[in-house]
């Protein structure tokens, strides 16, 4: 009896659903169960199927019947008026225990929790009324049946059981299918969201790339129109190359640390060198588009530019080189070039002086041990600024 009650209670959840006007009725009575979406419940649902066989009640009958047994079973713990709470506690115990008997009421209880207060409100009056109907249970049950006579003899009951089994099983399967389709839909929606995000990212990248001109897509199309964009394009390409380079360096480091074999090291080293070939190619292409950008090193970091200057790279020297390379020169051109050389030399002098002053002040601040960080970063920023200036000069040539 006890088990029967319990099992009926399992149907309770489903039947309550079918009674709820707000719910999608008929087939997918697995609604509440489905929305839970956890594996424990799904196993319970399959348990449902198993129990259906043994139950032999039809859903409509279960409606009237189930309430009573559940609540009467709850009566004993003394909580019949507030079945949901009991269900709640059941579901908790359920999570840890695999006792099938407890599973069903708790899952239906959980289902009821999912429905919320309104459901409870609906359920409780019925529960209350049903508790009064314990005497009427059998007649109600019998009235509900269309297939068999309301007799308490086991043969009839077993027949009913069989028929109801089929219905119940079908319903359970429906529930199962509905739940699965809901899960699939959820997964699909998530996939769509991901793709949407990826799409927006790609769009942004594309826009950036477009701004940088067709440089990337058709490297062969070196029209002067791309000139202005060539710098940007190169910057982007360089950034990407740098990333790739760091990745390869890490790879190499890891391989060395893990004492990889010689052949493996060789392959990694080869890939690194070929990667360098790539940057040289890129530089060559970019230089054709915008030589000043490459020469002035504006694509480098300020620190790198700083070192270029310290290393003695001067645009006036470049000019000296160029003069000899680009023969013949007209008088006018020669004069112009000479003047340019002169003025750049002067400017360079001035900048170098400034650089010296900076270094001196830096040394002073460090030596005096004043709050180093703030002033040193300031000085370093000045370094950078000066270098940027010096390099930018080349752009104005």
């Amino acid at each position, binding site marked *: 009896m006890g088990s029967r009650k319990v099992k009926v209670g399992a149907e309770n959840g489903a039947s309550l659903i079918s009674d709820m006007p707000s719910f999608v009725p008929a087939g997918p009575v697995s609604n509440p169960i489905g929305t839970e979406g956890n594996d424990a419940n799904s196993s319970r649902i399959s348990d449902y199927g198993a129990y259906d066989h043994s139950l032999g009640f039809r859903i409509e009958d279960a409606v009237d019947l189930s309430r009573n047994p559940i609540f009467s079973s709850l009566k004993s713990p003394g909580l019949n008026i507030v079945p949901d709470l009991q269900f709640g506690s059941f579901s908790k115990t359920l999570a840890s225990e695999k006792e099938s008997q407890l599973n069903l009421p708790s899952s239906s209880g959980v289902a009821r929790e999912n429905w919320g207060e309104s459901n409870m409100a609906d359920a409780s009056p019925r529960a209350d009324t049903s508790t009064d109907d314990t005497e009427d249970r059998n007649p109600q049950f019998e009235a509900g049946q269309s297939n068999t006579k309301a007799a308490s003899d086991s043969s009839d009951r077993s027949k009913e059981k069989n028929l109801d089994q089929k219905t119940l099983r079908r319903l359970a399967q429906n529930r199962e299918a509905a739940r699965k389709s809901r899960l699939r839909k959820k997964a699909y929606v998530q996939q769509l969201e991901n793709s949407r995000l990826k799409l927006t990212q790609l769009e942004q990248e594309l826009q950036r790339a477009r701004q940088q001109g067709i440089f990337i897509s058709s490297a062969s199309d070196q029209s002067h129109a791309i000139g202005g964009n060539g710098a940007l394009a190169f910057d982007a390409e360089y950034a990407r190359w740098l990333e790739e380079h760091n990745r390869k360096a890490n790879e190499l480091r890891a391989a060395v640390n893990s004492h990889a074999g010689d052949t493996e090291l060789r392959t990694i080293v080869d890939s690194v060198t070929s990667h360098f070939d790539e940057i040289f190619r890129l530089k060559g292409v970019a230089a054709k588009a915008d030589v000043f950008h490459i020469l002035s090193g504006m694509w480098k970091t300020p620190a790198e530019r700083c070192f270029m200057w310290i290393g003695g790279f001067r645009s006036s020297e470049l000019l000296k080189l160029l003069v000899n390379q680009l023969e013949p020169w007209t008088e006018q051109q020669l004069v112009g070039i000479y*003047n*340019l050389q002169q*003025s*750049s030399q*002067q*400017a360079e*002098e*001035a*900048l170098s*002086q*400034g*650089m010296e*002053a*900076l270094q001196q*002040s830096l040394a002073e601040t460090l030596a005096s041990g004043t709050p180093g960080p703030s002033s040193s970063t*300031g000085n370093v920023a*000045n370094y950078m*600024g*000066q270098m940027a*200036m010096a390099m*930018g*000069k080349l752009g*104005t*040539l």
Partner: protein
Amino acid sequence: TMDRLSELAKTKAAVIFAKSSCCMSHSIMTLFHELGANPAVYEIDRDPRGREMEGALQKLGCKPTVPAVFIGGKFVGSAKDVLAAHLKGSLKDMLIDAKAIWF
């Protein structure tokens, strides 16, 4: 303060507003000296009203605010502008026009 600025800018043919801590100011000063000019240098970080003056320079569009160069009372620009003018050759002409140098 704009008035004070323009006042100071007129005191000499070449005027540079600088900061003692700024290395670029130093570079520009060196350049002027190389060219033979003798600019008046006002270090605004040592001036009690330096902040206001810096604000006024900012309003003029000078970025970074120092060094700020005035030739013949006219605002020329920041270090970038001055260097560009020098490379073009116009700086020397400006200085000659303002009588800061003669050749």
